[in-house]
């Protein structure tokens, strides 16, 4: 059996990659996908801990995260569509109507 810390390091690495994506990409869709990446890496952590502690709760939590992620994806993408209709762009630097 692979030691749990390995999974944790892996999941941290994937989380960081997702975070970099969120922070640096300007395409809203890709930012969105990066967020999914981060969510997934967290799921991996949860499962790993679930196994490590021998309790099922972590995996149940993953189930809920997935549900929320699905909901979030649906709503988020709808927002992107609405935004695109209005501004003809998904460039996040141009979507700054909340400034000041």
């Amino acid at each position: 059996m692979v030691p749990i810390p390995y999974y944790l390091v892996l999941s941290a690495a994937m989380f960081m990659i997702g975070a970099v994506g969120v922070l640096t990409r300007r395409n809203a869709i890709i930012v969105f996908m990066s967020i999914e990446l981060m969510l997934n890496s967290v799921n991996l952590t949860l499962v790993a801990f679930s196994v490590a502690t021998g309790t099922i709760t972590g995996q149940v939590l993953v189930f809920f995260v997935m549900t929320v992620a699905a909901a979030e994806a649906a709503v988020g993408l709808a927002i992107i569509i609405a935004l695109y209709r209005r501004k003809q762009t998904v460039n996040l630097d141009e979507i700054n109507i909340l400034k000041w």
Partner: protein
Amino acid sequence: MPMISNAPLIVLFPLAGFLLIGLLGWKYRNELVIGIVGSGVIFLSFATAVGVLFEMASLPEEARRSTVQLFPWIGTFTGTSGSLGVSVGYQFDQLSILMTLIVTGVGFLIHVYSIGYMHGDKGYWRFFTYLNLFIFAMLNLVLADNFVLMFFGWEGVGLCSYLLIGFWYEKTFTGDAAKKAFIVNRIGDFGFLLGMFLIMRTFDSLSFTSVMSSASVMPTGTPVMFWIALLLFVGATGKSAQIPLFVWLPDAMAGPTPVSALIHAATMVTAGVYMVARCAPLYALAPDVLMIVAIVGAATAVFAATIGLVQNDIKKVLAYSTISQLGYMFLAMGVAAFSAGIFHVMTHAFFKALLFLGSGAVIHGMHDEQDIQKMGGLKKYLPVTYATFVVGAIAIAGIPPFAGFFSKDEILWNAFSSELGSPVLWTVGALGAVLTAFYMSRLVILTFHGKERFDHHHVHPHEAPKTMTVPLVVLAGLSFVGGWLGVPASWGLGNVVEDWLNPVFEPARHKLMLAEHESHAAEFTLMTISVVLAASGIYAAWRWYVQHTDVPDRIAGKFARTYRILLNKYYVDEAYDAVVVRPTQTASDKFLWKGVDVIIIDGAVNGTAKVIAIAAQTVRRVQTGVAQSYAMVIVAGIVAVIAALLFI
């Protein structure tokens, strides 16, 4: 003691009259009823006072003083000893009852006179309301058994003076005059107030009885007594129109003439004199202040008389004459001749009320003309007024055996002979006497003698109605015989007034260690000199205004500058205006309000708001609206927090 226990009625009758007329008068404007009620209540007061007087006289000398307490007024009510507790209570002694008699007696005559004088005026009921209120306040002033109630009366008469000077409020100048009177009086009251505080601080009490008895065992000449006496005297200068606060009285002539007679001649303005007399035991502890009082009195006497020489308004002449006479009274107080001063208050009340009422009759007869240059030869139109006016003029000039002679002469003699007096004070006083005789004669001559300088087409002089002439005659009688109550002791007859008042002033005089002087020769000499001086004043006026009518103009031309200064009353009003009034106003407006308030304080307030707004403008740039930069801050936060957890 039936009368004494009813004595507060003296005060309550005028109050009842005030309330009755004040509350109902505006609706039932029946002049007859209002007049009778208004005068009637004063007469009731007078009658009660006479009753009290007789009862007092029947008692032994040391039992004549009594007080009546009505109800608690101002105090802390905390039950702590030494804290303030003042009640409404009245004190009846020789001095206060004498003043009460003057106030109610002369007051009654003037009320009666007013029935005729104010006939047909729209504010008839208002006039009597105010007059009754005035008598009420004045009696409180006179009869109070403590300083605070006296102050109530003190301010109350000031208010009535304000109301009555501004009686004809539709004219512009009456408002000015009324306001000036009230405010100048308030300056004096400020002194009175501080004096009271200092008394409370020193004696832990404000009732006359305990203050005076505490004072009797205090040492003379301490600074605190100096200040108490001086501050109270400041109050007196305001109310009694002495230098430097005399400026309101001439203007106060804007009120109806009976008011000038009652308030600004006979009663209210003598309140200051009365107050000094009342506080004689305190003044006895401050001989320095007595000297100041004497000097101010003497200076005012001459100063006002010189202005009186050239005035052309009949009431203004009398007003300056009043100021001058009040100066004599203070001179008397200053040389500790308290009973002489009070005696002069009394005689002055008679003849000055007479003169004012006489001038009122003239003004009435001349259709509101007050300029004596536009009168002349009125003798034949107004015989009764003329006769009584002359009596008053002779009385004030100091020709024996008229009232003024006795009182004025006693003052002058004391000014000369008292240990506190000096020949200089006598000389100044005598100079004032000459001037008085001169300007009164001038007034009589210009008004009643010589050519008729008025316009016959428009003015038809006529004698006043009975309600006005009867008081004139009565006052003329009093001006003639009133002085006989105070015949100098040296004449061998009893000086009734002095004997009556002596118990009141004895402690003070004792404190000052004053002895009676029995140098009859010197007294007779001075008496003769002053009579001669008065006669020469009258003679000079006779020569200049009857025989050589061109002389006054020549003198005026020769001493043009002096004449102008006198005519403009030494420019005192203008000086006050330039030195006090305008700078205060400008500083308040330009510096305090528009400077401190608007620019500095509000500037600071609005400035703070502006700084915050600018800061917010800057800081809000952080909100770029780009979600990623927010995310970056979140990450930075996480990094920082974890680092903190790990390494700190």
